[in-house]
């Protein structure tokens, strides 16, 4: 049973040697899948991970076969940044703080981009709390949904109780430039944070 994808573009360039990852997280229907799809150079892939209802990754498969399980979807996309470096984007709800899948995704990640919706700002708290527990640095991108009241970013910052240094940008997840700028805000923040740690 062979398997070869239809297009050669699915493969990494032969010169690629290093891979990094960034998480794209946020509550239900905030635009995660859209964001990953807008930026990915490959057709975005999706996998599902089976979890027990309690949130544990199904470990002892034999022993848990009868228990109720849930699946968590993971969207991922890829951006080649230069001939030897690729960046993977992982879109996930980000509320599974106790699962091995989540530990796995966050381990070694550069940071996270939190997508937020001005109509439901408080729904972002759980995700931000999870990232803070893990010590994973993040930037926040507010999606302007059609019909949503347009808030001043200073108001949003206050409502989300962000640290002064946490980047906060507006973003349209359907637009490549706008989405790229949101990632740039995160990357610039990571770099400045790194410089500070260097001097600390």
């Amino acid at each position, binding site marked *: 049973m062979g398997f070869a994808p239809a297009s050669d573009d699915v493969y990494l360039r032969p010169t690629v040697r290093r891979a990094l990852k960034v998480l794209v997280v946020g509550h239900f229907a905030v635009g995660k899948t859209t964001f990953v799809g807008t930026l990915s150079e490959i057709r975005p892939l999706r996998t599902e991970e089976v979890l027990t209802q309690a949130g544990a990754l199904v470990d002892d*498969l034999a022993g848990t*076969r009868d228990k109720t399980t849930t699946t968590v979807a993971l969207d991922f996309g890829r951006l*080649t940044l230069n001939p030897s*470096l690729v960046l993977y984007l992982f879109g996930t*709800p980000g509320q599974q703080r106790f699962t091995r899948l989540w530990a796995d995704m966050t381990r070694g990640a550069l940071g996270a981009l939190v997508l937020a919706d001005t109509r439901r700002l408080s729904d972002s708290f759980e995700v931000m709390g999870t990232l803070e527990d893990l010590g994973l640095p993040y930037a926040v991108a507010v999606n302007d949904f059609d019909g949503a009241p347009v808030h001043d970013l200073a108001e949003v910052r206050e409502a989300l109780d962000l640290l002064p240094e946490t980047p906060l940008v507006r973003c349209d997840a359907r637009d490549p430039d706008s989405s790229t700028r949101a990632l*740039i805000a995160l990357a610039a923040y*990571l770099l400045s944070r790194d410089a500070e740690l260097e001097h600390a």
Partner: protein
Amino acid sequence: MTPRPRPGGRLVRSYVVTDGRARPTRNTLDLITLLTAADDPPPTGLTPEKRRVTELCRHGALSLGEVAGHLGLPVSVTKVLVADLMDSGHIATRTPSPGFHNPFEQGERPSAVRRFDAGILQEVLDGLRARL
């Protein structure tokens, strides 16, 4: 997507595919570990799923997460298969360039303060800016 309840059908399948094992034989594998197929050992004697993994990786390099996505397998199952295929010499990881800090291989805890070398962060920033 919110988690939704599912009956155990997929579980049974995962269980069969991995011979009932949930843990891979090595713990350095990550979603973004880059994989390629080795030329040497013929794929004879491999299970259909392992054969699919080697076949997919024969045409070029992919991350472990991409392999899972293309083959429609859960990430945890893919890790078990890939670890076995590395043990048997069918799959190799693409070696990072010297000096590249790989946090996974050093067993860093998720909560550990991450240090990425400023050079690579600058490369990320430059690469993103070049896309505008």
